[in-house]
Structures are given as structure tokens and as C-alpha cells.
């Protein structure tokens, strides 16, 4: 009941809001805020019910016979916490958008409609009890969130919107394929039933199962921003409005993660191959995102690439969970298939809690950081680092919030990112320790894990470096343009209102809270369903601290040496050193779709009937028919002769027209060198063109009476039918 309310209420209120918005803009804005806060209250209620072990009628909902295989909503620790995070993000961003959109109040009706609809769909995903429900809401939110990217309707926004939409659709379809394979393989898509359904048939079709898994991974990965389908992420964020960016990066990427995580836990928990795939893709995403962020000179683009990198961290955690479980099962000589959160071993549960905590942390961090970026945008109306340099020099609250975001995301001890990153690091090291011959992680693979560990640490360092770059640029350095700096300094306290302050500063206080062991320990136990999972975890032990410090050290080194020396010019200007051609989308995806595939299809098609040969034959035959039907000569010989004459005439015309066609084609390609013959060029038609048109006119008039002949044929057929009716009646 409660879950259903959480999912469907925003849809209804969104439409109401749209209707209100036609009348009054003010009421619409407050109504949207109220809706999101109602949602927040509901999800708090849901969380409390889950903690108290409330009635399942409140938490669960099944609607059979809709879509392909019914629909179900469930609430447990993980789901309800994420439902709360979602509602919180929405409430805060909607509050923030009140001030943000004051300077560009266009298309807001549409914006609020789709924001609220997406809220419902996101809750639908987060509370879904089967993959089909996940998929349905996933598709809805892909399409509704697309309008956020397009919101400003500039050239750049539209281009980014196209990329976002088509990646979303590719993802949806690949996922669709994966679900169909999984459904066929297991006969169910209910998360709770998948593990048991699997054990019966696993041995027979593991290849197909893996194919299904890869499809699902890529499908959800499209939304999560996983390499190689991350291309929309760095493009969509800079053009989207800041509150929308916060949601895109804070929640919508987690929707993809939710799908990957649930599928992994319920289906592939013991599949080491799948685990490696996720781990490697996660590592690439993590490193690539960090690298892109390092090079970026745009505030929101940096944050977007950072999101991608953090998603990589989360994927690494998921991959390690699988490997550690597989490792445990290998040692106990199992072969029994496990699934679900309850079957995680100790190490795996630690890895899983790291993953989940990092999800929550990243959502919160990106809420704060993107809203802070929004404050910059609405005051300075620029995103380029050189233009906004020195913006926050005397804006204390903003500075503190951003600083807390910086220390949170880069994993400084005692702040929230540190705990989750350390847990993820622990997962990798315990994988290395547990490696052994014949197990899921062999000794040789332990070396690979070492490499991954170092990439992990370097990526963490990059995080520190690019966040430091942003912080020092915006809050410490002075702008090169002194007049601009004066304007920035004069803004004083009027740069954000009370609501925005609550959002930006209030969220940043959470980072300290979430960094304390009792808090994150309790959250981890609730989310993974393993009570006291983090009891043995000592965040301030030497091993943990040293891992964190290595990472921070790398970061400081990168900042001082790489960013200050290489990525800045001698005049101390931030330069975009990333080669422009090195862009997966421009390099591969767009040409593939707009040039290569059409060319291939065009070639094949011209072989298969798209050339006009068959059409010409048909037309010629019809012409002969047309010209012989109206003849009424008594003499059969005459008829035959007439037929022959017409046939010859038609054949000659045919040859002539085809011949001229061929000649024209030849001349176009060689002598005339024309590309397109437009209607305007009538006067300049060549001799061949004119001749061809004359000939066409000639035989065109011969065949014009054809449809009358056909009408007669129809009438004849109808007469036959009349006779049939006559027979029936006579009987």
C-alpha cells in the first residue's frame, strides 16, 4: 500500500501540477515542492515500517496480469533506504530549483511534469520486486528524464539530448533482449524466485545465461554511465539545469546500478566470469572517468566525469562481491547455487556494504556539489573554470559546503567517502589474500587484482586532484579579470536564498555524520540485511589509514605536478589539453550510425530489389497489358499483329529509355560531375535529359487509361460474386 502510494502518487500529482501551471506559476512551484516533501515523509514512514518489521500488506504489492508478466513492488532494507535517498534528493533539488529557475522561467510546466513523473518511475525501480517492473519503470524514467537534458533547447542541449535518448534506447533494447533470454532460461523474473529457479537449470544453459547477464549489464550500464556506453554522461550534464544534473548523477545513475546489483546478487552471485567482467568494466570506468575529470576545464563536466569515475568504484565493489562469494563457494566445495543478500559470506558482505555505502555517499555528495555548481551558474552564468575563477572567495557557506564535498568524495578519514572507499579497497585486498589454486581467483589472477588495486588507488588520487583543482580555482584563486573579481566579491550574501542554503549546506553536514562508524555501520547492516556486518571493520586502523593516505598522496602529487605544470599555461590559465578528436561518440558511434551502417545497408539493399529492375519489368508487363486490352479487332490475326506492334514499340521505348538512363547516369558521374539534379536546374538540363523526358511523356500517355481497365476488371469480379449470390438464393 505504502509502496504503491510512493510510486503512483507523483505521477498523479505531476499531471495535476501541469494543469495548475497553466493557471498560476507560483502555485505550481509550491505544489511541486509540497509533493516532493510528501513523498519524503512517505519514504521515511516506509523506512520506519521496514525497520520495525511492519505488515507485509503495507510493504508489498502485486498486480498480476499487467504487462507481460505482472508487476510487483517490494520493500526491504536496501530498497527502502534507497527510496528515502531518492525522495530526499528530489525534495532538495526541487527546493533548489525554486531559486535556480528564477532567471530562466521557460518551459517550466513541462519541467515539473517530467520531474515528478521521473520521481514516480524512480521509486518504481527502487521498490521493484521483479525485473520486469524494474524494466518498465526504467524505460519510463529514461524517456521522462530526457526532457531535462533538452530543457534549455540550445544547439548543444539538443545534441546532448539526442545522444542521451539514443543511448537510453539502445540500453533499453539490449536490456529487453537480456530479460527475454533470462525469462526463457529461468521461467521467472521475480528477484526472490530467481536463485531457486536457476539452480534447477543452471548446468544446462550457462552460456545463454551469461549472454543474458552481459545484455542486462550493458542495458543497465547505459544508464549507470559504464564504459563503453558512458558517452552521454559528460555531454548531458553541462547542458542540463543544475538541479536536473544533481538528479541525473545522484539518482538516475544509481537506477542503473540498482539493476546491475540486483541481477548480480540474485543470479550471478557465483559466476566468476561475470564477476570479472563487471570488475574490469568497473575499473576502466573508474580510471577513465577520473582521467576525463582531470582534464576537464568545465565545472559541471568535471563533476559529471567524476560521477562516472565513482560509478566505476561502485561497479568494482559489485565485481569483488561476486568474486569473493565465488571464492568462498569454491573452498567449501559447494556447487550449490546461492543467491540473495542473505547468502553473502563475511568478506562478500563487507564488499557489498562498501558498494552500497558508496552509492548513498555518492548520491549525497553529488546533490551538494551539483547544487553548489548551480549556485555558481545562476550568479556567474558561466561554467568555464577560467571565467568563474575566484567566484567563491568571500562566500563562506558555499566554501565550507564545497570543502566538505571535497573531503567527502576524495576519502579523507572521518568523512563519508573514506569509509566506503576503504571498504571497497579492503574487498580488493582480501581478494588478493584469499587467492589460491583451483579457486575462483587463481594465484595468477591475484596479480591482476594487484594491478586493479593500484588503479583503484590512483583513481582515488585523481579524485582528490580534480576536486582540489575545482576548489582552489573557484574558492582560493583570484580571477585574471580584475573587474570580474570585483563583481564576484561584491555579491556578498545575496548569492543564494534560505532554501538553497539549506540544500547546499544542510547536505554537506550529512557528510560528517555519514563518516561516523555507528551511523554508517547501522546503515550498512540495514541495507545488506546482515546485522553487525561492519563490527570488525576498524576504519582508523593503520592498514586502512595507510591506504587512504597513499591515495591522497598520489592526489596531491598529481595536483602539484600534473595539474599546475601540465594542464595550466604559463600565464596560469586552465587549458583544455584533452585532444578533441579523442571522443568515443564522435570517433565511433555517430559515424557508425550515420555513415557506415547506412552505407552497408544501402549496398546490400541495392542488390536485393531496391534497384529498379524488378519494378521496370512489372511496369513493362503492365504496359503491354494495358495497350492490348482495349483492342476490339475481330480478326485474330490483326489482334496478334497489333499486339506484336505494341510489344515491339514498347520494347523499343523501354530500351531507349533505359539506354538514355544509363547514358545520363554515366554522364553525371563523368562529364557533368553533378551531385544532385534539383528542380531549379530545369533550364540547364542536358540533351540527354530532355530526350529522356520526351520519351517518357510519349509512352506515359499510352498507358494512362490503365486504371479504367482495372475498374472494369473489378466490376467483372463483382458480377461473378453476384452470380454466386444468385445461386445461394435459388437454393
Amino acid at each position: 500500500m505504502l509502496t504503491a502510494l510512493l510510486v503512483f502518487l507523483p505521477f498523479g500529482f505531476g499531471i495535476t501540477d501541469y494543469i495548475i501551471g497553466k493557471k498560476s506559476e507560483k502555485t505550481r512551484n509550491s505544489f511541486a515542492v509540497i509533493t516532493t516533501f510528501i513523498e519524503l515523509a512517505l519514504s521515511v514512514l516506509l523506512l520506519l515500517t521496514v525497520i520495525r518489521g511492519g505488515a507485509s500488506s503495507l510493504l508489498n504489492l502485486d498486480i498480476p496480469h499487467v504487462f507481460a508478466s505482472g508487476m510487483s513492488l517490494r520493500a526491504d532494507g536496501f530498497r527502502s533506504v534507497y527510496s528515502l535517498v531518492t525522495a530526499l534528493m528530489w525534495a532538495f533539488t526541487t527546493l533548489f530549483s525554486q531559486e535556480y529557475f528564477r532567471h530562466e522561467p521557460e518551459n517550466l510546466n513541462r519541467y515539473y511534469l517530467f520531474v515528478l513523473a521521473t520521481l514516480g518511475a524512480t521509486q518504481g525501480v527502487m521498490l521493484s520486486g521483479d525485473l520486469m517492473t524494474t524494466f518498465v519503470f526504467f524505460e519510463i524514467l529514461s524517456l521522462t528524464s530526457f526532457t531535462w537534458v533538452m530543457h534549455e533547447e540550445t544547439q548543444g542541449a539538443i545534441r546532448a539530448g539526442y545522444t542521451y535518448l539514443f543511448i537510453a534506447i539502445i540500453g533499453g533494447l539490449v536490456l529487453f533482449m537480456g530479460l527475454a533470454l533470462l525469462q526463457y532460461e529461468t521461467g521467472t523474473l521475480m528477484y526472490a524466485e530467481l536463485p531457486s529457479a536457476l539452480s534447477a537449470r543452471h548446468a544446462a544453459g550457462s552460456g545463454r545465461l551469461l549472454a543474458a547477464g552481459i545484455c542486462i549489464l550493458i542495458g543497465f550500464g547505459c544508464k549507470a554511465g559504464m564504459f563503453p556506453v558512458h558517452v552521454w554522461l559528460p555531454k548531458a550534464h553541462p547542458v542540463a539545469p543544475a538541479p536536473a544534473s544533481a538528479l541525473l548523477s545522484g539518482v538516475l545513475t544509481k537506477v542503473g546500478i540498482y539493476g546491475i546489483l540486483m541481477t548480480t546478487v540474485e543470479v550471478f552471485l557465483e559466476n566468476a566470469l561475470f564477476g570479472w567482467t563487471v570488475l574490469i568494466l568497473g575499473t576502466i570506468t573508474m580510471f577513465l572517468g577520473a582521467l576525463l575529470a582531470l582534464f576537464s576545464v568545465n565545472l559541471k563536466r568535471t563533476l559529471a566525469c567524476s560521477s562516472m569515475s565513482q560509478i566505476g568504484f561502485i561497479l568494482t565493489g559489485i565485481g569483488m562481491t561476486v568474486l569473493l562469494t565465488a571464492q568462498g563457494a569454491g573452498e567449501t566445495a559447494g556447487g550449490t547455487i546461492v543467491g540473495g543478500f542473505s547468502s553473502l559470506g563475511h568478506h562478500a558482505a563487507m564488499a557489498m556494504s562498501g558498494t552500497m555505502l558508496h552509492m548513498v555517499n555518492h548520491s549525497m555528495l553529488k546533490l551538494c556539489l551539483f547544487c553548489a555548481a548551480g549556485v555558481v551558474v545562476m550568479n556567474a552564468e558561466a561554467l568555464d573554470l577560467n571565467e568563474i575563477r575566484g567566484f567563491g572567495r568571500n562566500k563562506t557557506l558555499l566554501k565550507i559546503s564545497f570543502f566538505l564535498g571535497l573531503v567527502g568524495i576524495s576519502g579523507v578519514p572521518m568523512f563519508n567517502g573514506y569509509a566506503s572507499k576503504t571498504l571497497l579497497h579492503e574487498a580488493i585486498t582480501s581478494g588478493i589474500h584469499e587467492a589460491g589454486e583451483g579457486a575462483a581467483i587463481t594465484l595468477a589472477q591475484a596479480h591482476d587484482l594487484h594491478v586493479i588495486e593500484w588503479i583503484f588507488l590512483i583513481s582515488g588520487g585523481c579524485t582528490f586532484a580534480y576536486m582540489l583543482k575545482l576548489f582552489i580555482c573557484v574558492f582560493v584563486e583570484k580571477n585574471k579579470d580584475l573587474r570580474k573579481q570585483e563583481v564576484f566579491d561584491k555579491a556578498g550574501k545575496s548569492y543564494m536564498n534560505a532554501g538553497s542554503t539549506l540544500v547546499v549546506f544542510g547536505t554537506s553536514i550529512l557528510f560528517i555524520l555519514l563518516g561516523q562508524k555507528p551511523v554508517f555501520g547501522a546503515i550498512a547492516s540495514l541495507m545488506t540485511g546482515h546485522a553487525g556486518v561492519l563490527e570488525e571493520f576498524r576504519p582508523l586502523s593503520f592498514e586502512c589509514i595507510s591506504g587512504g593516505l597513499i591515495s591522497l598522496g598520489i592526489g596531491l602529487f598529481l595536483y602539484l605536478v600534473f595539474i599546475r605544470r601540465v594542464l595550466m599555461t604559463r600565464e596560469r590559465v586552465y587549458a583544455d589539453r584533452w585532444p578533441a578528436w579523442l571522443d568515443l561518440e564522435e570517433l565511433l558511434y555517430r559515424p557508425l550510425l550515420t555513415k557506415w551502417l547506412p552505407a552497408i545497408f544501402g549496398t546490400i539493399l541495392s542488390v536485393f530489389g531496391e534497384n529498379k529492375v524488378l519494378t521496370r519489368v512489372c511496369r513493362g508487363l503492365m504496359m503491354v497489358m494495358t495497350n492490348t486490352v482495349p483492342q476490339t479487332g475481330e480478326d485474330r490475326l490483326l489482334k496478334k499483329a497489333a499486339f506484336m506492334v505494341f510489344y515491339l514499340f514498347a520494347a523499343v521505348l523501354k530500351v531507349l529509355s533505359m539506354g538514355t538512363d544509363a547514358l545520363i547516369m554515366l554522364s553525371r558521374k563523368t562529364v557533368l560531375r553533378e551531385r544532385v539534379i534539383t528542380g531549379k536546374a530545369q533550364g540547364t538540363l542536358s540533351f540527354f535529359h530532355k530526350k529522356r523526358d520526351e520519351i517518357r511523356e510519349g509512352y506515359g500517355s499510352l498507358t494512362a487509361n490503365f486504371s479504367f481497365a482495372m475498374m472494369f476488371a473489378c466490376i467483372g469480379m463483382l458480377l461473378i460474386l453476384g452470380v454466386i449470390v444468385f445461386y445461394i438464393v435459388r437454393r
Partner: protein
Amino acid sequence: MRNILIIIAILLPILGGARLLVSAPKSVPGKRIWCEVIACAASVIVWIVILGGPVGDFTVYSFTRGYRIAFQLDGLGMLFAGMVSLMWPFVTLYAFEYMGNAEHKNVFFAFYIMTYGVALGVCFSANILTLYVFYEMLSLVTIPLVTHYQNSESMYAGRVYAGYVIGGAAAALITVMVTTMYTTPSFTLGGHSFHELPENFMLLIYLIGFFGFGVKAAVMPFHRWLPTASVAPTPVTALLHAVAVVNSGVFAIMRLTWYVFSPQHLAGTWAQKVAVTVSFVTLVLSAGRALRERHFKRRLAYSTVSNLSYMLFGVMLLNPAGYTAGMAHMLFHGVIKMSLFLCAGAFMHQSGRSYVYEINGAGKKMPLTFTFYTLGALSLTGIPMLCGFISKWNLLLAGAQAGTVYSYIGTACLIVAAFFCAIYTLSVTLRAFFPVSDENRWKGKELTDPGWRMLLPIGIFTAVNVLLGIFPGPIMDFLGKIAAGVI
């Protein structure tokens, strides 16, 4: 009694349409009422018959021993007849507004209504000979509709159309004659084994029939007539070239495959391989071709080519799941493509433009039309909560169930084609609602949504699209029963 009703349902539109040719009502409302009443009456009769359950086979005329004109009503016939009869009255309503200023309206509506009767004849036919007769008549009565505008372009289209469909029917006639010689009189699910014939000869005959009837279902080498024929008035392209005519081709192939030849005997043979390959090649290539097409209706026509092959792919998997999915796609694609074509027609009628790049910005002026269009486009792509998803889902499951190399390649092609579909349909939506500002052609120009006669049918088809997408249960159960031979 119900036998007579079936014959009335076929004859009523034919005679009612013929009356318009002989002595049409003088006033415009009179003509409209006549057409609408005929269409609705026939639909009501069809539904009375359908709701009464199946009707056994009865002969109306026997040429000679075994060769007879006979009607019956079984599950597949119910599906096709129910679908056609629900659509015709609405599209007729749409046609009144669309053809408002056109010439030769009498001729147009005469053949338009007559086609309804002939299409019902195809649905109700009880053996392949009857099917063939009505199938051929369907080709003939629709030719004047294609050539309606009487300009050189539509005359050319008419000739191409006639050449293809008559040629295809001629090929099908070979199969019709041979099978009629060896089979029992009426369609039964499971078909006949044809053990009297050498196996390869039987398969050859089957393939000739497949390609012969496949001309109307626009399988690859014979698909060109469909885009060419899209010069016809939109009600014709929508109802005939997205539903009635092309689906009669698919319908005939379903009859041939499942009711004349037996799926067990065809499964695993080279004939099946050829047919499956042709259908998945068609579905992906024509979707790719639609990407390059700039004419709005022709692009949708290529999309129809692609979607018809989805159905054929389902049917040619030769398992009940695939057959069910094929039938589901026949129904759902009909609903979706109808709404898409009607939206395209609404745009062309209101603006006088017909190319995709001329749509830039039109969505803000015609919000309802393009919202309906978007829902149709999403459904065709296979977005859940809309009905196109259900049939694609079942096709994929059936493909996985068949488990052959061909079916896996086919399902992969299906996904690729669905992606192309997203691009070629949604790019229209994007142009309409989110034009790049300097290319907004309709800014400050006069352009509005069409009147209720055009919007109502579009709205209803869209509503059906959504409803079937959310509650597909009853329909899918019904189709499952057809495939199992219960109905």
C-alpha cells in the same frame, strides 16, 4: 442464420460501395452518413458473428469436385475480422475530413467501402481457393484507390502496385491449385502432410506460395511496391497498406503455413530456413532503409515492410509461441501503425508538407497530434506499457525457445531493427518538439491540430495502444488458444 450473416457482412459493403458508383446521394452529409452507416452496420454484423463463437465451414458455390467457394469462422479469422471491423468505421470518419477538398470523392469512397467487404471475405474464407479469390479481388479493388490522385506519380505507383500484387498472386495460384488437389476441403490447424508428393517438390510448392503471398506481405525482393504506393491518400495508406492489404498477405501465409502445410513437416527443412532468413533479412534491412528515407509516409511504409517481417519471423519459427507472437504483432502493429499513419496524414493535411525535415517545430503547433504520434513511435520501438512491447517480448521469447542458429540471429536482428525503428520514428518527434532554433520552420506560422473527425480516430487508436500494453492478458490468452487450436 449466422451463415447468412457472414455472407451479408461481406456483401453489404460491396453493394453499398457499388451504389455510390451508380447513384450517389447528392448532398455531402448524405454521402457521409451512407458510408458511415454501411461501415458500422457491417462491423456490428461481424461482431455479432464473432461473439457467437466459431462457425463451421459451409459451401456457397462449388465449381467442381473439391473446388468450391466456402466460408467459415475460426480463431484466426476472428482475429483478423475483429481487427479490420473495429478499424474501418473510424478510418472512414477520418477520411471524411482528409478527403474534404479532394476530387472524385464518390469513386474513392465507393472503392473504399467495397474493399471492406472484400477484406472480410479474406477473413471468412474456409479454404485456400476462396482465400485466393478474395485475395485477388482485394488487389484489384484497391488499385483505383492508389491511383486516386490521377497524376503521373500515382499512376506510376498504381502500375507498380498492380504489377507486383498480380504477379505475386499468379505465383500463389500455383500453390493454391496443387494444394487444393491434395488436401481436405477446409482449413484445419496442423495442416496436411502431403506425403503423396516428393518432399522437395512439396517444399518448393510451399516456397512458391510463401513468396507469392509474400509479395503483399512485402518480403524483401518484392517489397518495393509498398513505399511506392504510399502516394495514395492517407486513409488508404493507413488502413490498406498498413493493415488490411498487407496483413492479408501475412494472413495468407499463416493459413498456408499452419493450416494447409503442416508446421511439423516444415520444421527444420530448407524451406523453413529460407523463409526465416528472408524474413529477418527483410526486417533489419528495411528498417535500415527507413533511416535514409526523408518522405514521411514513405518512411513509415518502410517501417511497415520491416514490421510485416516481424510477423513472418514469428510465424516461420514454427512453434506455437512464435505463431502467437506473430498474431499478436499483426494486431498490435495494426493499431500502432494506424495511429502513426493517421498522425502523418494529419500533419500533411494541415500543413501541405510531406517531408520529414519540414516537420521542424510543428509539434508546438500541433501538440495533440504529435503526442499521439510519439506514443505510437515509442510503442513501435518496444517501450513497455505500450502494446508494441508485448508482441516483441513474445517474439524474443519464442526466438529463444526455438533455439536454432537462425532464431538467434533473427532475435538479434529484431533488436537491431527495433533500435533503427527508434531512430526513424523518434527523430520525427524530436524534430517536432525540439527543433534547433534556427531551423524552426513553423515559428509564427499558421498551423493547428486538425478537427475532431481526424483526432478522434487517432486518439482511440492511441488509447487502445496504451490499454493493450498495460492489460495484454485477455488478448494474449485468446491468441494462445488460437495457436493451440482450441478456438
